[in-house]
């Protein structure tokens, strides 16, 4: 039969695939295509934004309650998973042309998140992340703290595949203690041109205070930026990397709550030390290179 002999079909199909985007503007208006350029198109994540471009910018969110050292290791949320302690999550309203609002009822972490995404004219977009402690949140063992003071770490992950760059502005001043206000990234790629990404720090937020000297080294009311060289293929595996960045805030909480005795189980302590070590070796230069040869385990 004829169809058996055509083993080159896939290569041709892939050529068609890349040509397809070029064909569509003939049928659909440019405005129509542009309104669909950005979206939460990494829908395997609780919140992951990317453009409809093969290798480009990805922006995603991860978070965890960071008061209990043991629990936190299994409570980092990033990829959507079944039976992860969620009391339901998803979009309450959504239109791919304009955006919408998602609520995430994270019972396991004692917090409800609201993530909104809106497109803005001329290729701009915005996302808003709101956290509200759940009334059924468990109290941290051994404390009388109100659940209204639940401690949550949130990581916004800005990655780039393919050619281009994204750099944190003002990193020289902020490297030591972190950013006091907004964090602004400058970036450029061939498809997107030059752009900025701003992560705001509104005044209304509260941050944990540290009474321990370690708190002065890394104050928790500052925003930290960790920059890493990561090859394209490893970019999506970032979930397991988040844990390494938990080390600092965890240290601060733990020394605050248990200043004389860390009471970390021995094996966890080793894990903890290893992660601290990893972090201090992480690159802080804000270039992302597509040629990075290896993924540092």
């Amino acid at each position, binding site marked *: *039969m004829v169809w058996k002999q055509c083993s080159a079909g896939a290569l041709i199909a892939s050529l068609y695939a890349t040509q397809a985007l070029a064909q569509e503007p003939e049928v659909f208006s440019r405005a129509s295509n542009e309104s669909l350029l950005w979206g939460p*198109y990494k*829908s395997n994540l609780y919140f992951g934004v990317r453009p409809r471009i093969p290798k480009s910018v990805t922006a995603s969110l991860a978070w965890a309650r960071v008061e209990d050292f043991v629990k936190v290791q299994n409570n980092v949320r990033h990829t959507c998973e079944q039976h992860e302690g969620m009391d339901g999550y998803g979009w309450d309203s959504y239109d791919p042309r304009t955006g919408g609002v998602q609520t995430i009822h994270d019972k396991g972490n004692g917090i409800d998140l609201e993530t909104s995404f809106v497109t803005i004219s*001329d290729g701009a977009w915005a996302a808003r992340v709101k956290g509200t402690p759940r009334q059924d949140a468990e109290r941290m063992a051994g404390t009388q703290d109100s659940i*209204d003071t639940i401690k949550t770490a949130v990581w916004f992950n800005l990655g780039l595949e393919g050619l281009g760059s994204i750099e944190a502005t003002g990193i020289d001043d902020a490297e030591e203690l972190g950013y006091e206000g907004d964090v602004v990234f400058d970036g450029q790629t061939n498809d997107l041109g030059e752009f*900025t990404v701003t992560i705001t720090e509104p005044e209304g*937020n509260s941050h944990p205070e540290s009474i321990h000297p370690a708190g002065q080294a890394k104050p928790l009311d500052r925003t930290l930026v960790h920059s890493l060289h990561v090859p394209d293929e490893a970019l999506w595996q970032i979930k397991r990397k988040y844990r390494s960045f938990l080390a600092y805030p965890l240290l601060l909480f733990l020394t605050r709550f248990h200043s004389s005795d860390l009471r970390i189980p021995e094996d966890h302590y080793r894990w903890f030390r290893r992660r601290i070590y990893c972090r201090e070796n992480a690159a802080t230069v804000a270039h992302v290179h597509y040629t990075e040869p290896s993924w540092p385990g």
Partner: protein
Amino acid sequence: MHLVEKVFEGAFEFDILFKPKSREMSFSSDFVTKQIETVKKNFDKKYQDVLKPQAPFTVSKYLEFSKSLFSNLIGGIGYFYGDQVVDRSYASEYDEENEGFWQEAADARARNAHKLEGPYELFTAVPSRPFFPRGFLWDEGFHLLPILDWDPELTMQILSSWFNLMDEDGWIGREQILGSEARSKVPAEFQVQYPHYANPPTLFMAIEGLLDKAENKDSANRNALADRDTVKAWLKSVYPLLQRHFDWYRRTQYGDVKSYDRPAFSTKEAYRWRGRTEQHILTSGLDDYPRAQPPHPGELHTDLISWMGLFSRNMGRISAFLGEDDDEAKYTKIAEAIRRNVDDLHWDAEAKTYCDATIDDYEESIHVCHKGYISIFPFMTGLLGPDHEHLGAILDLIGDKEELWSPHGIRSLSKQDEYYGTAENYWRSPVWMPLNYLIVKNLLVSLDSGFYKYLILIELQQDIAQQPGPQQQRATTMYTELRKNLVETVYESWRETGFAWEQYNPDTGAGQRTQHFTGWTSMIVKIMNFPDLAGKDSGHDEL
């Protein structure tokens, strides 16, 4: 890459603002606040116009439920890019032509001739964000039906993306596992795609819906962004791919009529799924639904010929719409031959239902009847016209509480079947929303399009008064009751668990298997949006 780390105490809020440098005007968080409000308001307004639940689901809880399911379907749309694992060995065993073919094919698969190819890109909705975050051909045609009501142009873009995956032969892989991130969610043995495997061509249901809108045959959506000219221009651009795809199905999934002297209107229009194993036909999408035992190369599959009926009918409509008269004649002829052959090859007069066929020990063609979704596939795919002689028998089967009817929707397999609820019990009793959607829809089509008149005619012939009679009343009641049962089932489970589910238990109505299955379970949105016909019966509850 950069990780921006913030640590909060209590409630918090922050924004992420992306601005191209070419855009001169910057924007603030206050602006974002206003924009979010505007977006929500416009969504609510458009929802009222396009997908609002109809009676008896007019209380606000159903509106919230409907918006949530629809938003998760359309908010689940993803963009995927990466390489794919494909076995392009085209081994002769994959023809599945010998007795014992499934063992030979298993041996051929075990040679592990698969390779990475691509990269490909795909813009698609997904069945489930946590468990199936990738494109599925069988699901996508259903996904696109509510999306089509919302945004026809978006639907065309997604369809284009799928059709652009097609290879030279006309094949599209049934599961699109593009890139290592997507593969990380799939066990290795399920990653390989085979270019002799088909899957239900559901994308043509979306094209049928699109044509309905372009030709003003669908009154549901008046806010379409695409008009007749756009649909025409788009169809013209993909038309060669659609033809290639259609030819691939006919060429590779043919069933054998001639060798077994099967009496039929056409010797060509019969179909058999390839990729069959002893217990499964994964390619059919109905995985473990009971089929002929043991498998035989002479099998004919009711669901596939029904899909091909839907496919050819729409190829006819598309070519007519594009003014391709010769093609229209060709496809219409095929569609007619399929319509005739469905009855000639698959109707079993004794069982009063449609059945698969196989070859017995005496080399005779016989029917294999397991009542369930398979038996009513010609009805679900719109092949039975309003005056079809077997429509009554199909309604009997659907409405029978001892067979398919359950208080939570139509069961996948009859309660009377020996395999009901057995083994994996995946398609052997549970209620599936996409198939129930097809039942509700075709009940509505029948009632809308002259089935009423036909029934009245019969009743007149039988000297029954011109008042709505028991047959007509039964069909209307069935539509009304089924719609209510389905909506209540999915709603109650959603309210209780916070999630939509892959399938529903016919006895308890509980959602089961995959959690947060916001793909085709969202067909309930369309079912709620269908018209209420309850006023048209006389209020009796029994079927």
